[in-house]
C-alpha cells in the first residue's frame, strides 16, 4: 500500500472517529478521547526512536513539556492559533532532541537513555525557575468556550467576504465547534500525521537503515550506513512529534504547572504502550495506546489515578518479561502456530 493511499484511509478512519464521537455527543468522550489520541502520538513518536533504532528515550515527558511550555510562552507573549503553536512546539522539541542526540548518541546506547532521564529533571528545574511561564506556581491559560470554524484565519484562507458571512448567518450555529471538539480534532490530525510518518519510515530506506542500527550497529557502521546521522534523524523526528503532542496541552488542561507537564506518567506510558503493543511496526504503538489509554481512562474514573499508574507499570514489567514482542508478537506466534 502506498503512503498516499494509507494517508487517505487513515483520514477516512479519523473522520469516522470524529463523526462517531459527535453522535455520542458527550463532552467526556472528547475529553477522554483527546488523552487517548495524545498517547497515540506520544507512543508512535517514542517508537520511531525506541522501536526502530533500539535507543531508549526516558525523557518523553521533557519533550512533551517543551511543546506545552512553548505554547504557554507564546500565549503570554503573542497569542497564536493552535496549529501554529503545534509547529513551534515541534520545532523546539526537535531541536532539543537533535542537540541531546548529538552530545550522547556517539557513545553507548545506555548513556543516551540516562541523559534523557536527566534531561527531564533539568528542564523542569529551568521551568520552575522561569517566572515568565509561571514558575513553580504554574500558568493559567484561558480558552474560549467554542471556536467559530469561519474564524479570521479561515476567512483569509478561503477569501470569504464579510457580506458572504452575513449570507451564511442562519447556519452559523453549525459552523461553531465547542473548544474540546476542536482540540480533539487537532489531536486526531496529529495522530494521523504521526502514524503516516511512522509507517512511511518503516517502508523507506530510512527505515531499513534504522533496522540495521537496531540489529547490529557495528556491522551497519562497517557496511557504510551513516549510523550517527540516522540516529540524529530519528531523535529529531521523535522529539518533534512529542513536542507537537504537547503544544495543545495547556489549552486542554487550562492550568499548567511543571509537575503536571513533566509527569512521569508520560514517560512511562510512551514506553509501556509500544512495548505492550509491539515495537517493530507502526501498528504496535497504536494498539498499545488505544488499549492502555482506554484502560487508564476507565481505571481513573472507577478506581483512582494512582492505581491506574500502578497497572501501567506492572503491565510494562510483565510484558517485557513474558511477551517481549508485545501483542503483535503474540498474534504472530499464534497465527504461525496455527499454520503449522
Amino acid at each position, binding site marked *: 500500500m502506498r503512503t498516499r493511499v494509507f494517508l487517505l484511509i487513515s483520514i477516512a478512519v479519523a473522520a469516522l472517529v470524529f463523526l462517531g464521537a459527535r453522535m455520542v455527543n458527550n463532552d467526556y468522550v472528547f475529553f477522554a478521547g483527546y488523552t487517548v489520541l495524545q498517547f497515540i502520538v506520544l507512543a508512535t513518536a517514542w517508537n520511531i526512536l525506541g522501536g526502530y533504532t533500539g535507543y531508549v528515550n526516558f525523557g518523553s515527558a521533557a519533550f512533551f513539556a517543551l511543546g506545552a511550555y512553548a505554547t504557554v510562552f507564546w500565549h503570554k507573549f503573542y497569542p497564536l492559533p493552535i496549529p501554529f503553536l503545534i509547529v513551534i512546539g515541534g520545532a523546539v522539541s526537535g531541536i532539543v532532541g537533535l542537540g541531546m542526540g548529538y552530545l550522547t548518541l556517539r557513545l553507548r546506547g545506555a548513556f543516551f537513555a540516562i541523559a534523557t532521564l536527566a534531561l527531564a529533571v533539568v528542564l523542569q528545574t529551568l521551568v520552575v525557575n522561569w517566572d515568565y511561564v509561571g514558575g513553580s506556581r504554574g500558568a493559567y491559560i484561558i480558552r474560549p468556550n467554542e471556536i467559530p470554524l469561519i474564524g479570521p484565519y479561515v476567512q483569509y484562507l478561503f477569501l470569504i467576504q464579510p457580506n458572504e458571512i452575513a449570507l451564511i448567518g442562519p447556519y452559523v450555529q453549525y459552523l461553531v465547534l465547542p473548544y474540546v471538539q476542536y482540540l480533539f480534532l487537532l489531536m486526531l490530525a496529529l495522530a494521523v500525521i504521526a502514524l503516516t510518518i511512522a509507517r512511511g519510515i518503516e517502508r523507506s530506506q530510512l527505515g531499513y537503515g534504522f533496522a540495521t542500527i537496531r540489529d547490529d550497529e557495528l556491522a551497519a557502521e562497517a557496511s557504510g550506513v551513516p549510523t550517527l546521522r540516522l540516529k540524529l534523524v530519528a531523535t529529531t523526528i521523535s522529539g518533534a512529534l512529542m513536542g507537537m503532542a504537547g503544544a495543545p496541552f495547556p489549552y486542554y488542561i487550562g492550568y499548567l504547572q511543571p509537575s503536571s507537564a513533566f509527569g*512521569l506518567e508520560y514517560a512511562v506510558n510512551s514506553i509501556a504502550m509500544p512495548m505492550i503493543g509491539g515495537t517493530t511496526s507502526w501498528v504496535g504503538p497504536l494498539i498499545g495506546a488505544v488499549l492502555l489509554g482506554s484502560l487508564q481512562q476507565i481505571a481513573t474514573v472507577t478506581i483512582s489515578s494512582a492505581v491506574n499508574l500502578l497497572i501501567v507499570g506492572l503491565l510494562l514489567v510483565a510484558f517485557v518479561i513474558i511477551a517481549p514482542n508485545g501483542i503483535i508478537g503474540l498474534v504472530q506466534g499464534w497465527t504461525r502456530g496455527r499454520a503449522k
Partner: protein
Amino acid sequence: MGLSFDLLINAVIAGILLGGFYAAVTLGVSISFGILDIVNIAHPAFIILGSYIAYIVNTRLGIDPIVISIVMLPAFYFLGAGVYQVYYESFERRGQEALRGLSFFFGLLFVTEVMLILVFGVDYRYVEAWYIGPSWRLGVMDFPLRMLVPCVAALALFAALELFLSYTFVGRAISAVAQDQLALRLMGASPIRIKRIAFGISIATTAVAGALLIIIQPVEPSVGREYIGRVFAICVLGGLGSLPGTVIAAMLLGILESFTATFYGPSWAPAVAFGVLLLTLAFRPAGLLGR
C-alpha cells in the same frame, strides 16, 4: 570580606559532606553499571525503599537508622540477587538487555514509587536520632552532625567495598567479570553466580544509602527521581567501575551543588548534575579514573 570567606569555607565543607553522602548513593551503581554493565536505573527506587524501612522501624521501635540499615543488608542482598536472576533469565540470556532490560528497570522504578505512594501517601517522612540537630563548630567552620555522620558512614562503606573487591576471591572475581568472562570460567567461577553476588551487593548498599538519605532530608516517594541524574553523572564522571573515582566525583559534584545552592539558590542545584553528565559525556566519556 570576612563574611564571604566564612560563606565560602562553609560551602566547601557542606559540599564535601554532601559529596560523601552522594558517594554512598552511587557506590552501588558503580558496581552494577560500572562493573557488570547492568543499567539499573531503578537504583534510586531501592534507596527510597531503604529510607522507608528505616522510617518504619525507627518510628515504631526507635532504633538508630544506620543500625537498621546494617540489619537490613542481607534482606536487600537477597532482593538484589532475585532481581538479577529475573533480569538474567529474561533479558541478558536472550541478548535483549538494551531495549527491554532498560524498560524492565524503568518499570520497576515506577512500580516501586507508585506502591510507596499508595501505601504511605506523598507526605514527607523523617527519622529521629541523636545526631539530627546538633552541630560541631571549629572556629568559623560548621559541621552539622546530620551531614557529618552520613559522610563518615559512606566512607566506611567505601572502604569496606574496596577492601572486599581487592582482597577476597569473590571480590576479585567481580572485577574480572568486566574484563574476561572466559578466563573467569577457566578459574572455576561461574560468571552468572559472580554477577548475581555483585548485583546483590550493589542493592545491599542501597539499604545503607536509604537510611543515610532519610537522615539528611525528609523523604517522599518521588525524591528518588532527583537522584537518577546525580547517580549516573557521578558514576560516569568518576570513571565506570572505579570506586575511588566514584568517591572523588561525588565530592566534586557535592561541592559544585553546594556552591550553586549557596550563590544562585537551591532550586538550581538539580541542574548541576545534568550539566556535569553532559559535559563529561561530550569531552571525557572515560571519566576521571576510567578503565
